[in-house]
């Protein structure tokens, strides 16, 4: 479990913190509660009408007092209508307020996730972060649209019914409470069982979806390896397990749901027996006794929905807790904001001072790195996988902060530079150039939103990609597909490069940005990059040492340490890590 998943907070604390973070929820709450009071109070109209009719209308000498009954019915009908109007107004206000609050919460959480460092966003946690701004908030929304309303109304109804019962006959009210008290306790237990059973259902649905998606996403591998039977078996197992969990949960529901029905019948029977005995003694009228029977149904219905709604409520609170958990995480790479330094444009000078880095709980991946990169120099960073190259790049672009030491640009610590200024001046092209499901032009424009199509075309031409663009069926309007998958891995890298170049940074960091394109294209790109980065500082993480040969200076990393630095010609001549790497690279080139 990670910090993202486990905020431990009580329901009340969640409510307090949640309302503090989303003040939208509190807007107009007083008016809504007032309407809720009217809406629930109206629910006792019918039992009162029954009682009045039986006691006063029918008891009148000379047959029923139709005049009285007519007046009572009309007054009650007016009350019912008033109740309906109040309920309508309350609903509308509640939906509007809650949805406003939820939308604001969603957007705030979304923004916050982007503000968290890449550390929190890496790998498997991404999916859970997505659910923070989707299903967790949806759960709250669903609860507020149904369960929340029910709880307000049911709570009010319970109170109103109890009060009226006590007014009619306190001994009978006590009797009803005695019958229902153990039920309330039992419902708590049932609800705990149910929430466990539904927890199992949710777990199984995850397994099932993952197994089903294998048959679609993994179709080529399944075909190529004849793994149909294995996959079918897995699907069958997970579908079966999901079905079994559903049936188990449903069995619990089926067994526990009618318990309120039985309690109601027991209470009704008790009321009839005790009420008749009381009536014979002259302590109760027949109308009040019958009204009591109606009140019992009024009393039961909130309890009947309680199991269902409490489960919803628990899920909603858990969801809210998870969203708050994200909002309460302090971004470990924080934007100094307005207090930060705004750096003027111009070639960047970089200095690492005794920089070390380790992922929390992990081994040190970068150790005591001190290096200065002069403005306008072109640097190649080389080393085996796991030597710390990419970590170096991430620290340089402040995707992460060092565990110790500092990174300075133009003499200013990176942590003091305002993000808007930092991102304008330093841009990294990652190895996996993620593209958005939009047109080619829009993807490149992501680097600079105000750029015109002409500018985009110019950028592509300058990178030597004009012919490639002309070869695309719809040119700049070509859709790239989800994650850019309509393009090849190599083409995606071309787009990512163009995107970064359009952003016009002063320091360009390339993290194996051309690893998937063919050698001839890569060489051409390399040259284009050399010409477009003239006058800027450029740092390339290189997997092909041809890049290193062309650089002004090479930084050699080995097991988290900077072990060698200097121009290619000098390094290759001295014994050391670089000479080894170069020998193995040269051996590959030679036939």
């Amino acid at each position, binding site marked *: 479990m990670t910090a993202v998943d486990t905020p431990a907070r009580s329901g009340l604390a969640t409510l307090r913190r949640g309302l503090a973070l989303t003040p939208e929820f509190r807007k107009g709450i007083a008016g809504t509660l007032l309407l809720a009071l009217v809406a629930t109070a109206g629910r006792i109209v*019918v039992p009162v009408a029954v009682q009045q*009719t039986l006691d006063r209308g029918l008891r009148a000498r000379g047959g029923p007092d139709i005049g009285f*009954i007519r007046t009572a019915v009309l007054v009650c009908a007016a009350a019912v209508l008033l109740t*309906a*109007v109040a309920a309508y107004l309350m609903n509308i206000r509640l939906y*509007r307020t809650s949805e406003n609050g939820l*939308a604001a919460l969603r*957007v705030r959480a979304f923004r916050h996730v*982007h503000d968290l460092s*890449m550390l929190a966003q890496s790998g*498997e946690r991404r999916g859970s972060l*997505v659910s923070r*701004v989707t299903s967790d908030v949806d759960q709250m929304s669903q609860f507020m649209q149904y369960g929340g309303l029910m709880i307000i109304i049911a709570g009010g109804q319970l109170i109103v019914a109890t009060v009226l019962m006590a007014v009619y006959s306190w001994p009978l009210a006590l009797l009803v409470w005695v019958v229902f008290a153990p039920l309330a306790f039992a419902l708590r237990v049932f609800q705990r069982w149910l929430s466990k059973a539904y927890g199992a259902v949710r777990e199984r649905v995850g397994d099932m*979806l*993952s197994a089903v998606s294998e*048959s*679609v*996403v993994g179709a*080529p591998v*399944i075909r*190529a390896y*004849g*793994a*149909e039977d294995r996959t079918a078996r897995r699907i069958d197992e997970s579908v079966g397990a999901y*079905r079994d969990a559903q049936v188990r949960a*449903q*069995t619990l529901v089926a067994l526990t749901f*009618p318990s309120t*029905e039985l309690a109601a*019948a*027991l209470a009704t029977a008790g009321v009839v*027996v005790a*009420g008749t*005995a009381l*009536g014979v003694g002259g302590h109760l*009228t*027949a109308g009040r006794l019958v009204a009591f029977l109606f009140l019992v149904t009024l009393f039961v219905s909130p309890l009947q929905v309680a199991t269902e709604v409490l489960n919803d409520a628990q899920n909603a609170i858990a969801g809210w807790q998870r969203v708050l958990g994200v909002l309460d995480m302090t971004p470990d790479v924080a934007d100094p904001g307005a207090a930060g330094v705004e750096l003027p444009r111009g070639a960047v000078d970089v200095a690492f001072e005794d920089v070390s880095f380790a992922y929390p709980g992990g081994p040190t991946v970068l150790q005591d790195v001190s290096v200065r990169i002069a403005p306008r120099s072109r640097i190649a960073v080389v080393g085996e996988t796991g030597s710390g190259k990419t970590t170096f790049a991430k620290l340089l672009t402040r995707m992460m902060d060092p565990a110790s030491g500092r990174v300075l640009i133009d003499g200013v610590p990176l942590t003091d530079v305002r993000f808007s200024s930092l991102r304008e001046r330093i*841009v*990294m092209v990652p190895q996996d150039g993620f593209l*958005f*499901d939009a047109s080619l032009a829009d993807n490149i424009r992501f680097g600079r939103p105000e750029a015109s199509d002409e500018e985009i075309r110019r950028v592509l031409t300058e990178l*030597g*990609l004009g012919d490639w663009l002309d070869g695309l069926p719809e040119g700049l309007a070509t859709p790239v597909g989800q994650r850019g*998958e309509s*393009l*090849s891995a*190599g083409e995606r890298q071309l787009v990512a490069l163009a995107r*970064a170049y359009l*952003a016009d940074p002063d320091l360009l960091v390339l993290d194996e940005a051309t690893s998937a394109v*063919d050698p001839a*294209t890569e*060489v051409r790109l390399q*040259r284009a990059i*050399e*010409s477009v980065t003239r006058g800027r500082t450029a740092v390339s993480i290189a*997997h092909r040492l*041809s890049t290193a040969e062309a650089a002004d200076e090479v930084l050699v990393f080995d097991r988290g340490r900077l072990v060698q630095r200097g121009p290619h010609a000098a390094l290759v001549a001295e014994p050391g890590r670089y000479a080894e790497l170069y020998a193995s690279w040269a*051996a590959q*080139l030679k*036939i």
Partner: protein
Amino acid sequence: MSQKVTSDILKKGAGVLWVAARAEPRLLTAAVLSSALYAAMTVGSAWVLGRVTQDVVMAAFRDGRTTTGTLVLGGLAIVGVALLKALGVAGRRLYAGMVQYNMQAAYRRAVTRQYLRLPLAWHQRHPTGRLLSNANADVEAAWAPLAPLPMALGVVLMLVIAAIAILATDLVVAIVGFLVFPAIAGLNVIYQRRLAPVAAHAQRLRAGVSEVAHESFEGALVVKTLGREADETERFAAVAAELREANVAVGRLRGLFDPILEALPNLGVLAVLLVGSIRLRSGAMSPGDLVHVAYLFTLLAFPIRALGWVLAEVPRSVVGWERVQDVLEATGSLPYGDRSVDGKGPAGLEVRDVRFGYTGDDVLHDVTFTAEPGRTIAVVGPTGSGKSTLTNLLVRLVDPAGGRVLLDGVDARDVERHGLSATTALVPQQAFLFDDTVRGNVTLGLDVPDEDVWEALRLAQADGFVSALADGLDTRVGERGATLSGGQRQRLALARALVRRPRLLVLDDATSSVDPQVEARILDSLRDSAATVVVVAYRKATIELADDVVYIERGRVLAQGPHKELLERSAGYRDLVTAYERAADEPAPDEPAPGEDEDEENEEAVA
């Protein structure tokens, strides 16, 4: 919606339910019978209460005395009816749920079986998201009306019994009932009808919000490196606002109809009181009857809504069912022949005049080459020249539009089921890992001892990092498992191929994310494998491994032969493979035009 269309949908909906009735006749009958019991007892409980009021309560109040026997009898009657009703409720919920879950499970299995049976070409024509929702959301929607169906049937019965009961009590009061109950039922149908599209719209928007969040978080590194968090938040806020409005629209409908549906039965009870009192004066009714009918109104108010629930689910159910049927009725398969290719030693491969296209233009034109048993062929060409498509044809993931792929002289189309997958192995460019253990990912269900798995991992240079994993072979990888680097994933995919000891091994740039030093060791170990190897590569060291090179540009074989020979014969080939040395030797001439072409997007779709 016209009357015609509505009745059409209802007819189709009934057809869907009939399918369930035939599949699960016993459970469905049990559910309906339970519901009937529940219905009868609901009406019965009102009747009992009326009788108890009249004969026990009123009598006692009138006479000023009562006997314990009558009281106990009255109490027992109330509890007894409630017990039966509870039994009905429990049975209805349990059996209705089981019918629904069984049908869902059965159709999930059926749909995914189709996915496994249909050829890859069919998969390529259908977007992934669509197929996933067919197996999940559509199956669920198709069987959604099954849950409230028994309840609704019970309600129909309940209404009939109630109508008779009220009619038997008093004709005039019955008229009030006949006005109120259809009004509730009708209003609820209107309510659900209007709610369904609005709720579906909100559901779609929820999916949209999720898509934007997914994409944005997946591209977080890009968003961050370019400092575009604010714009992304704006994009997300726009879809979130749309969803908010849709949710409010749902709420507005609920907020309007719920109070009306709540008020109607209450007004009905009041009307019964008024009319009933008048009838009471004329002696047509007793106070007990009045209580009975009034109580019935209170009890029936809620269950009547079940009719609306079923009707609301029907259009969604019909759409879901039709989409599921599209998959189940899809034809087109990759028919297998009956020839076997289970010879010993490396397989011979011959590609003869092969043509292939995805939608429009051909990606491959008249590709011809031969790989003698045990030889290694390198396929070289610029990005997007059709290499990945070619590898798919070699292991028969797709069939050529023209020409033939022959394995040991047998046309791939004539080979028996599982014949090719037992003989050939393709390692694709992008390694796909299943949500399974390391062992499961390597064996894919093949029954091999762990020693063989380790041996394959060793050949793929993956034994080192696998033994360093916390649970070794039992470590979960894939979607929800341990994080592996691109190179590690590729090596697992390679081990998956090697553990099968294929007679034809096809590598599609399968070591691109592996360090050169590690790759060299992998290539060394492949040299000794008893397989014919076809390898797509850029790296010279990989090409060096090959006996022959096939050079492809824009889907055509431009040259083939030994590497040294091609270097002299083919200018395009020379340019491509010697790019690095030339870059090192010559100063940079400014030369545009990378070797990309428009066929690229199709090629990726296969990989």
